[in-house]
């Protein structure tokens, strides 16, 4: 289809990730990385440093004395927040676009992805095979960025898509997008991940988060974790608009993630708590960065 081609092409015109964000992602992808490496990358980037210090000194993380260096801020914020901030800065233009194609409000995509990221990290200890919690978090942040690209193309089709979905024409919202445009936000997200030279596992997350069984074996457990994190985010009230809750859970998730009802309920409580603590701080970083 012609439309799908031009959408994928438009991905290539997007600005690349900043070098420091790319480096942070690479470092976090290595389970044996040290905190020092993260500090060093963040310190070299003035914009990231400024945001980290602002968040560390914001109300949500307030300490008695002012945090004045990245080195001191890191233990306060935790690595995942630092990487989230770094990613947030160079993806702010994408996260901050209103999602017309989903009738979503400005900031909703960011909140959905942040909540998914926290949930994915909380779910990761329940994986059948070990998955680094930080990687799960990063995967959550990135998983739906394809929506930012595809949204404007969906805008004219939106009412038709919603009507078709509500009328039971499609098994999930992804198929509805596919029928309207010849592509969908996961495929477009995957193309974006490739354009950004992201680690292969993260590209797999973006590409397969709605159908994790299609992910390559190496990344599959991670993709399942983000898949479940996505549901936890939507269930908890952080969706992106017309498509919220309109996806199917991959029935074989229990082979990759072993979690009981009670454990899931506690994950939901913890996710909600941390989400609320983080939103004020990181959203400010988002808004200040464009």
């Amino acid at each position, binding site marked *: 289809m012609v439309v799908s081609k031009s959408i994928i092409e438009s991905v290539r015109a997007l600005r690349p990730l900043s070098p420091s964000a790319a480096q942070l992602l690479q470092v976090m992808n290595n389970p044996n990385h040290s905190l020092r490496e993260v500090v060093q990358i963040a310190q070299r980037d003035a914009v990231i440093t400024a945001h980290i210090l602002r968040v560390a000194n914001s109300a949500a993380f307030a300490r008695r004395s002012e945090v004045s260096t990245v080195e001191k801020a890191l233990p306060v914020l935790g690595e995942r927040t630092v990487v989230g901030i770094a990613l947030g800065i160079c993806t702010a233009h994408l996260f901050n676009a209103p999602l017309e194609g989903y009738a979503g409000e400005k900031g909703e995509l960011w909140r959905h992805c942040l909540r998914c990221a926290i949930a994915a990290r909380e779910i990761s200890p329940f994986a059948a095979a070990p998955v680094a919690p930080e990687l799960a978090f990063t995967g959550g942040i990135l998983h739906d960025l394809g929506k930012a690209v595809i949204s404007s193309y969906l805008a004219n089709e939106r009412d038709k898509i919603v009507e078709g979905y509500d009328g039971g024409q499609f098994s999930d919202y992804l198929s509805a997008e596919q029928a309207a445009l010849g592509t969908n936000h996961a495929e477009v997200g995957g193309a974006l991940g490739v354009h950004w030279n992201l680690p292969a596992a993260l590209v797999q997350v973006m590409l397969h988060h709605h159908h994790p069984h299609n992910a390559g074996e190496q990344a599959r457990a991670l993709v399942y974790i983000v898949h479940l994190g996505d549901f936890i985010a939507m269930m908890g*009230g952080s969706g992106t608009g017309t498509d919220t809750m309109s996806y199917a859970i991959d029935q074989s998730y229990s082979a990759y993630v072993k979690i009981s009802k*009670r454990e899931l309920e506690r994950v939901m409580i913890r996710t909600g708590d941390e989400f609320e603590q983080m939103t004020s701080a990181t959203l400010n970083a988002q808004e200040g960065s464009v």
Partner: protein
Amino acid sequence: MIILGVGDFGATSKPGEAIKTIGLGSCVAVIMLDPETHTVGMDHVALPDSSASAERARQKPGHFADTGLPALLEAMKRSGWNGNTRRLIVKLVGGANVMDPNGTFNIGKRNVLAIKKILWQHGMGAVAEAVGGQISRTVTVDVDTGRVRISTPGREEMEI
């Protein structure tokens, strides 16, 4: 406008006032109306059972169906309802469900069931509901009219 977050509950009979909760996923808004005193109340229930976290139930009883409903009834009394359950109109909104064959992620459905069970124990039942399905819902209840309005992104507003 009183806006309730997850686990919050509240009631009011103040003219012109309204209670709203935004973006219900698997959470359920339990809405109570007393037509005689124009008292309206709402609880934003997130989970079925407080045994998941006693600590959370202490901080925010509204978070769970079993602790939230009694708390909401108390709030209704403080706002003017006389305690006669037969006078109360109950409506339920939310509880969008994930079809999980393992029965783990179907929290929307479990929330609705837990709420109905507790209502039944209090001799009450819901007269109207917009629950389940696979959409998110925002709901508002007005003191003056008692109208319960529901909106979902990209869909027309509805009333129950």
